[in-house]
């Protein structure tokens, strides 16, 4: 039997402040798979990510989304997370006064529920292990969440959260951008370490760089709110070589 882990998006239309940004996106990601979503600035990549996570400003006007058989769009953002969805934000919020450790423990416990809270010892061990893997200084745990973090630290913090929360479907929104090559490798290794049949990944990116480490099973190209092409990882290479203009022309020629 195929993996029961999946995200299925059917003909999704999303509006922001009355403007239609996504104009019918369909996509299916199964456990164990890594999909890349590429596209130029403003094509709607983050809109897709936010709409899936349930951001109140992104209004789904039609379409359906299922997460492991559940109707995702019926759920509140926190319910989606507890159902197994995770979004690594392109621009994470800075939360003053809330330490990384306290936040993560609260998040894990809200998922585990009352009387099933993670023990302090188990939590501490897990946190130390994951931070080590991401080459983060232990002092990080007691810093306020994202406050004063450098761009790279924020990205690592997002992947740390993903590692701690063990989602089924993770959406990484430009987690690679702004990272130097060493940081990129650490973050990519961090994601690779989490790969397995219980995790499907949608990696949103501008560049092909991170895909060398992540080796996606499928690459999708988003242009003006539509997926205009899907293919293997060679599509990403071709795109990097020839640019989005080539793609636009090609689509234009088809259409």
């Amino acid at each position: 039997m195929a993996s029961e882990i999946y995200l299925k998006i059917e003909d999704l239309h999303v509006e922001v402040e009355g403007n239609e940004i996504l104009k019918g996106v369909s996509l299916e990601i199964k456990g164990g798979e890594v999909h890349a979503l590429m596209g130029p600035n403003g094509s709607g990549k983050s809109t897709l990510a936010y709409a899936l996570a349930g951001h109140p400003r992104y209004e789904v006007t039609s379409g359906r989304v299922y997460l492991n058989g559940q109707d995702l769009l019926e759920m509140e953002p926190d319910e989606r997370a507890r159902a197994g969805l995770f979004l690594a934000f392109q621009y994470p919020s800075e939360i003053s006064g809330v330490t990384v450790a306290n936040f993560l423990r609260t998040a894990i416990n809200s998922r585990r529920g009352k009387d099933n809270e993670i023990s302090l010892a188990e939590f501490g061990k897990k946190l130390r292990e994951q931070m080590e893997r991401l080459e983060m200084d232990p002092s990080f745990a007691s810093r306020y969440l994202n406050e004063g973090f450098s761009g790279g630290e924020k990205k690592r913090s997002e992947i740390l959260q993903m590692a701690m929360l063990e989602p089924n479907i993770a959406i990484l929104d430009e987690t690679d951008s702004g990272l130097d090559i060493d940081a990129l490798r650490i973050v990519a290794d961090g994601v690779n370490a989490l790969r397995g049949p219980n995790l499907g990944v949608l990696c949103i990116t501008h560049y092909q760089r991170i895909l060398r480490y992540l080796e996606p099973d499928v690459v999708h190209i988003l242009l003006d709110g539509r997926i205009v092409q899907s293919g293997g990882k060679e599509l990403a290479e071709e795109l990097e070589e020839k640019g989005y203009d080539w793609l636009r022309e090609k689509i234009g020629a088809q259409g």
Partner: protein
Amino acid sequence: MSVETAITLNARGIAQLSERLGEPEWMRAKRMAAFEAFESMTFPRWDRTEIVGLDLDDLAIYREGGALTEAELPEPLKSIAEKKKGQASLFFQVDGAKTWSSPLEELEAKGVVVVDFPTALQKYGELVKEHLMSSVGFDEDKFTALHYAAVSSGWFIYVPKEVVVEAPIELRSYGAAPGLGLFSHVLVVAERDAQVTIVHGSASDDGGAQRVVADVVEICPKDGAIVEFNAVQDWGRETFNYTVRRSLLGRDATVNWCTGEFGSRLSRSHTRSILHGMGSSSNYLSVYFGDGDQHLDVGITMLHEGEHTASDMVTRGILDGSSRVVYRGLTDIENGARFSSGFQSENSMILSEEARSDSIPGLEIDETEVQAGHAATTGKIDPVHLFYLMSRGLRRQEAIHLMVVGFLDTVLQRMPLESFRQELSSLIDRKMHG
């Protein structure tokens, strides 16, 4: 003795009280003068804080007391006693006149005095006479007059020169008898270069009856003395609380206030440092949390009179329900207070549509060579932050709780006394759980 047979607020009652306490003649005279002032004065008219539904007729102001055993303490005080025995010097008062304290011999051996207010009048009359009303007069308004007319509880703390009291002295006032007014005076005298940390906790179980509180705190740090004063009020929800805290500082003296305002129906709680001595300094760190239909009027004034004086006030508060908070912060640098600095910041976070925050920061500067500044903000929960936290699986209420705690934590972290920080944290948690 029930409240009905308690001493009540009238000329006969005040004379009776004076007799009962066996106080010196000078105190009796002050008390009677205060009562006269009380009777002749009308209620103060405060900007934005209206006194509503306050009934002082036949108010019970005193009930007979005596020593309590630890087992007889009301539950909240008992648990504090259990937790803190050995780590702090404890002196609790229930309904004013019922008292319990941990052993205080170690302090006595150093010449430190920790006694209840009536005992102080009898045993340390001259010292009390010298310092009582040194910064809060009996005729400032109707409530200070009420305080001095009816005062029968509180504490006198005396720290001899150069004595450093390591463990905190915890003073707790608890109201248990419904309807009984509480009028306690905290008088702290820290002689030259003395150091002491005090916790002053006030709470009550009002049992559905109106309670009137008129408290005065006077702190007298002599040259070079350092007093850390931590005050938390968690009065019951029928309490009208009027509290004035003041300190007149000597040369190079320091008073650091840490306060938490949580309870009461209507509370006016005003703190003032009079930076009189050259080089004196004062910090004020405060959190408040209003909910339900509470009205909290929090005031803080830093009055700079001496040269090279420094003050800083940092307040953060939460408003929920239909509560209203009026915050008045005043940095007042007088002519002659050259080379002084005074800063203040106040940030409030509003969790509901109906709550209202009035922040009135003030800066009055009558001197040129000074540094001063203020900042105030009022905000709501940032919906983007809320979404971020919820996207990790936190329920809305959990996410808000975390942000509220985080918002206040930046002030709490600066409070030096850990047990006090913990106490404020658990009060914040209790408020968040409704």
